């Protein structure tokens, strides 16, 4: 009796263009939007634009500007963009301030006259010492702090000779003089640093200028062409699966309202076989949606689909059954289609937001990550991530599969219990 139920539902779906669009076209469009927004980026934080005004034009200030320009996270501008091909004059303190006010950049740095004569600030405070001015847009709370930190770092890495010289000066002042031999060796070291900086052998961020040598190496997703796409394929896919499944399960409400359900139940078909038939059909529909999503990801966004087929099938089937049972439960709770629409939208959007369909759970606070485990989305996305991002073996998927199938069985049993109201008047 299950097969006839499926056949009837398939034919009905073919005729419902709205449901077809919702099921197959809309998820792909949504997925593409998210993939374009998030998947195409190399890093999650954009480069910060900083305007630099060098009023000093000393050897020291030029080294500092050069050091800032060498920072990969900064886009240093000393003059506005050319207008109609005409080169603009360099920023002054006043024009830089105007540019910040106009939103051209969140921060401007002004290196004053005389900065190069006494650039290092540690030691006794001197009110007459020329100080770098940081002009910030206070609506951006991140950029000014980041620039402040980077400025300190660049000072350390681009002017090591001046740092050493100033340090020795204060050492001699407070600890007593050096012996001629110590003085000679210190001067040689400072001379070496000075020559190295002048020759450009040390660039900001290189090993020579670092306080601690760092060798960063990615251990996850290193070889992925586009790792975020697999995440969003699963994340957006599960969210739309939930919508589709609840919509498809709403056919029960339509049939109850039209009297068709009564007629069906007066035949050989029992309520259990009817619901199993609809569960199976809705799960097949959900799995077909997932296949389409991941194929689209492969074709357009270079998602590595074909080498993950077994994991995809295991997670896809588990997820499809779980969302199908979820839809059946929602439909059996509701009295009308309108109720179902409202309830499903509410529940699905909440589940999707805390379950990681809209924002990765690993970037959420710990409490929110735990709360997410109450949702189908989280378990499904975790499973797909294991398959597509971490390349884990099938055997590692058992927690996700077990939970999803457990959810499916529980939800279906509840739905069956609630459906007793349709069995008899």
């Amino acid at each position, binding site marked *: 009796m299950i097969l*006839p139920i499926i056949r009837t539902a398939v034919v009905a779906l073919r*005729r419902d263009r709205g449901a077809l669009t919702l099921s197959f076209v809309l998820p792909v469009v949504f997925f593409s939007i998210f993939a374009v927004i998030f998947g195409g980026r190399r890093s999650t934080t954009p480069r910060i634009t900083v305007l630099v005004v060098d009023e000093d034009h000393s050897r020291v200030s030029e080294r500092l500007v050069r050091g800032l320009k060498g920072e990969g996270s900064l886009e240093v501008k000393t003059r506005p963009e050319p207008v109609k091909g005409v080169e603009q004059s360099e920023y002054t303190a006043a024009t830089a301030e105007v540019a910040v006010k106009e939103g051209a950049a969140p921060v401007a740095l002004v290196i004053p006259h005389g900065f190069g004569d006494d650039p290092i600030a540690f030691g006794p405070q001197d009110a007459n010492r020329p100080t770098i001015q940081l002009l910030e847009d206070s609506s951006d709370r991140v950029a000014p702090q980041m620039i402040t930190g980077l400025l300190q770092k660049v000072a350390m890495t681009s002017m090591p000779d001046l740092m050493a010289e100033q340090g020795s000066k204060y050492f001699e002042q407070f600890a007593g003089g050096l012996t001629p031999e110590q003085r000679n060796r210190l001067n040689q070291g400072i001379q070496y640093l000075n020559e190295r900086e002048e020759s450009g052998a040390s660039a900001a961020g290189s090993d020579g200028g670092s306080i601690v040598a760092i060798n960063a190496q990615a251990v996850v997703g290193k070889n992925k062409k586009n790792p975020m796409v697999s995440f969003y394929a699963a994340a957006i896919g599960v969210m739309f699966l939930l919508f589709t499944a609840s919509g498809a399960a709403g056919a029960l409400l339509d049939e109850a309202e039209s009297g*068709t359900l009564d007629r069906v139940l007066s035949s050989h078909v029992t309520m259990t076989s009817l619901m199993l038939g609809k569960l199976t059909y809705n799960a097949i529909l959900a799995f077909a949606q997932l296949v389409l999503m991941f194929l689209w990801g492969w074709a357009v966004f270079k998602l590595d689909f074909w080498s993950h087929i077994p994991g995809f099938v295991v997670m896809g089937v588990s997820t499809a059954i779980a969302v199908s049972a979820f839809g059946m439960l929602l439909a059996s709770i509701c009295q009308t289609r309108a109720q179902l629409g409202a309830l499903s939208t509410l529940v699905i959007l909440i589940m999707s937001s805390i379950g990681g369909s809209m924002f990765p759970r690993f970037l959420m606070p710990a409490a929110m990550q735990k709360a997410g485990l109450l949702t189908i989305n989280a378990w499904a996305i975790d499973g797909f991530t294991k398959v597509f991002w971490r390349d884990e073996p099938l055997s590692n998927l058992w927690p996700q599969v077990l939970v999803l199938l457990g959810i499916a069985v529980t939800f279906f049993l509840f739905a069956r219990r609630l459906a007793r109201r349709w069995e008899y008047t």
Partner: protein
Amino acid sequence: MGQLSGNSQAWPLRIDSLVKRFGQVTAVDSISIGVQSGECLGLLGPNGAGKSTLIRSIVGRVIPDAGSISIFSAPGDSMAARMAIGWIPQELALYPRLTCYENLQSFGRYHGLNGGWLEQAVARCLDWATLTDRQGELVKNLSGGMKRRLNMAAGMIHQPKLMLMDEPTVGVDPQSRNHIFEMIEQLRRQGISIIYTTHYMEEAERLCDRIAIIDHGKIIAQGTSAELVHSAFGSRSQVMARFQAPNERVAAWAAERGGRAVENSAEFTIERSTEIAGILESSAKAGLDLVDVSLRKPNLESVFLHLTGRELRD
């Protein structure tokens, strides 16, 4: 109604002391009735009389609080009973996005038909409903009459021996209604037993061998149309006089004369037509301004009014 007696083998349907309550409302109040082989039994009553609840109890969609139902000697809730019954619900219980053919095919499968049997059954039902040339049409695109016919055909797909028709002509035009009557008469010629619920007297008179008048969940009279009229009115006729006067005055005068008032009209039963003159003379004396007067033979509508004091279509 008392308990039915006799050999149950002869009865396609037997209902004994059936009761169904919805909260405080008793929708079916201790009904006992049977349908004989090849008989068409009409259940005549106004909306809310309990006809549909009785039908839904027979088809297993309502669980009775008391009483028993047997269909060809099988318990009403058995699979054998389900297969013997064909139900045409009052609603258009069809899949709107499926074609006529696909609808019949689906319901045939739900009844366990497949292969050649299913194809034959679909073809037979399409022919019966004269929808063969529209078999590829989506149901949502059919006219109201066509939908009604298809709704009937879907109930016939598994060739049941007892048909339960719950107001199958609701909302159709006269031409389609005649078409449906022809379909039912065709079934009658095949010897299929039928229960036909309606609140249209003409339909009951035309189609049914026997009529049970049902009101407030009880069968208040049953028999052939002629028997019902005769038992209520004998050989008498009805006179209806309409007045231009307040309803209360008409009612007081009608009661005084042994008649019944319906709004600003008064109804009397008379043995001889000469009694009309006396009625008119009395109304004139009572100061009632007569608008018109009519004489008619009693019908099922009159019987229902006589038994319940209400119109069938109230």
